[in-house]
């Protein structure tokens, strides 16, 4: 297996140019929303709105301004699939369509997916949706085809500010840690890494440098695996089966027993 690869996104240097979105759409031949007749969302400069089956990159614009708008800041973040080491989507997929590649990334094989949408409900980040053209669940592949050809993903290649950086996870983590220290030294004490270590779903192979709480960026503070409920859910179901069986047997068995008593000569 090749060394694990991924993205490190430094949100502090994102300028919201959306070159990543365009590069992603172009390379992956993703269709436009509503046949190109998009409407404005009214939410800052964000007309992409969310990640889905035809938007595998999404630049978020978070405006933090005082009411009189004399003071404030922009938070910009290019969101993408996190390629989790413990991937919820891969775990629940009943068809085997979602696989882990030799680069430790997570890819949906469109020819195997049947559109059951279990992965959509399982992903804690709301990354996956149905692509209306293929009728299958789709998301960022971390440009698996480009990586197999020795190229870097289209989005990081297009990023003009190095906000999106591509490389081996080990190298990216070192680089990101240095950047956090640099920001702390220059006074930006709020800077921290989101998903860069194993504590979050075994590590996110696409991790972030943030300067506010995760939920401000629309990221879950404590994402979990869906199978956390498997054992407890099954045990409680068995308890339900036991109770219903006891109620049923109690109601019918008495009658059966009394009937046998009556039938005895």
């Amino acid at each position, binding site marked *: 297996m090749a060394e694990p690869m991924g993205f490190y996104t430094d949100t502090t240097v994102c300028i919201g140019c959306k070159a990543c979105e365009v590069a992603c759409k172009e390379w992956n031949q993703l269709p436009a929303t509503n046949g190109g007749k998009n409407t404005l969302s009214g939410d800052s400069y964000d007309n992409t709105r*969310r990640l*889905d089956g035809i938007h595998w990159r999404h630049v978020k614009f978070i405006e933090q301004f005082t009411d009189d708008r004399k003071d404030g800041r922009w938070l910009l973040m290019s969101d993408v699939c996190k390629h989790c080491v413990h991937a*919820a989507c891969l*775990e*629940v*997929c*009943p*068809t*085997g*369509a979602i696989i882990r590649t030799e680069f430790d990334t997570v890819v949906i*094989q469109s020819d*195997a*997916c*049947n*559109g*059951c*949408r*279990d992965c*959509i*409900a*399982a*992903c*804690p*980040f*709301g*990354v*996956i949706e*149905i692509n209306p053209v293929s*009728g*299958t669940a789709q998301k960022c592949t971390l440009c698996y085809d480009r990586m197999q050809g020795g190229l870097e993903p289209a989005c990081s290649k297009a990023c003009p500010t190095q906000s999106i950086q591509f490389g081996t996870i080990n190298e990216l983590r070192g680089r990101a840690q240095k950047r956090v220290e640099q920001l702390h030294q220059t006074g930006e004490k709020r800077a921290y890494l989101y998903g860069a270590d194993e504590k979050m779903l075994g590590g996110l192979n696409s991790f972030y440098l943030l300067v506010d709480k995760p*939920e*401000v960026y*629309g990221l*879950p*503070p404590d*994402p*979990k695996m*869906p*199978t956390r*409920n*498997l054992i*407890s*859910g*099954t045990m*409680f*179901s068995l*308890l*339900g*089966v036991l*109770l*219903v*069986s006891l*109620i*049923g*047997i109690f*109601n*019918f068995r008495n*009658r*059966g027993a009394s*009937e046998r008593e009556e039938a005895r000569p």
Partner: protein
Amino acid sequence: MNGVPSSTYFSGPPEWRWFVALYFFFGGLAGGSYFLASLIALFGRSEDRPLSRLGYYIAFPCVVLGVLLLILDLQRPLRFWHMLIESNTYQPMFKPWSPMSNGSWALLLFGIFAFVSFLGALADAKHIPWAVWRKVHPPSLLGRFIAAIGGIFGVYVSGYTGVLLAVTNRPIWSDTPLLGMLFVVMAASTSAALMILLAKKSRWTMPGLLDLQRMDACVISLELIVLIAVMMSLGPVLRAWLNVWGLLLLFGVIGLGILLPMALYWRSGKRGEHNMITTAALVLVGNFILRLVIVFSAQGV
């Protein structure tokens, strides 16, 4: 958490809508009816055999309808077989830790049992001329074996859907481990209600009918307890039901589908046969609404 009560609020809705809600209802009826039919066949008296057969008559069409609904809900319905066979290697596809994967297998196996028991019940009632099928119906040893194993699959089919919802990251569904238990209890109460309704419509008077009604009264009481436990286990996520879904839950499910049937049953002094049809119909309607609330409310968050 910035006004959000759980990390599950950042996931996306899978758009499981009417087909899935209806599947939950008919799948629950299929599994529950088979389970009750087996229970009556194994523990009931001989006069109750028509009631047991009725359970098998309900189970098979309901599981067929349920599977069709599930297939139609797929975005690529012709690829339904990918649930069972890996499309690249043609090897069996089975993930024990994925409720949708093992549920697919359970549906296949339960469907076979439901079909065999359906034919067995028809043969037992002499509706089909093939006497050999009578051997697969209790009280024969083979019939008892099939009823027991099929009953286990039936109860599995009725409950795995609740566990499936819990094994996601959606609000409500994955914020409680009790949905599987609720679904098992719901399937039992709905199936008992449908069997009572159909038996009364046919003017049957076997003693097992009263047993079944008494059982249903106990099961809907249990359902109320489990539903309250579900609501308590949701914690701050319960706020997601402070809307029209909460009103439906309160009046449609708890009021109309649980408390009113309980009151009708207990007020009749366990004798009031005239209430049986109304009580059963209310239980069916209440349970259907509960499934709608569970399926739709979690996707509107």
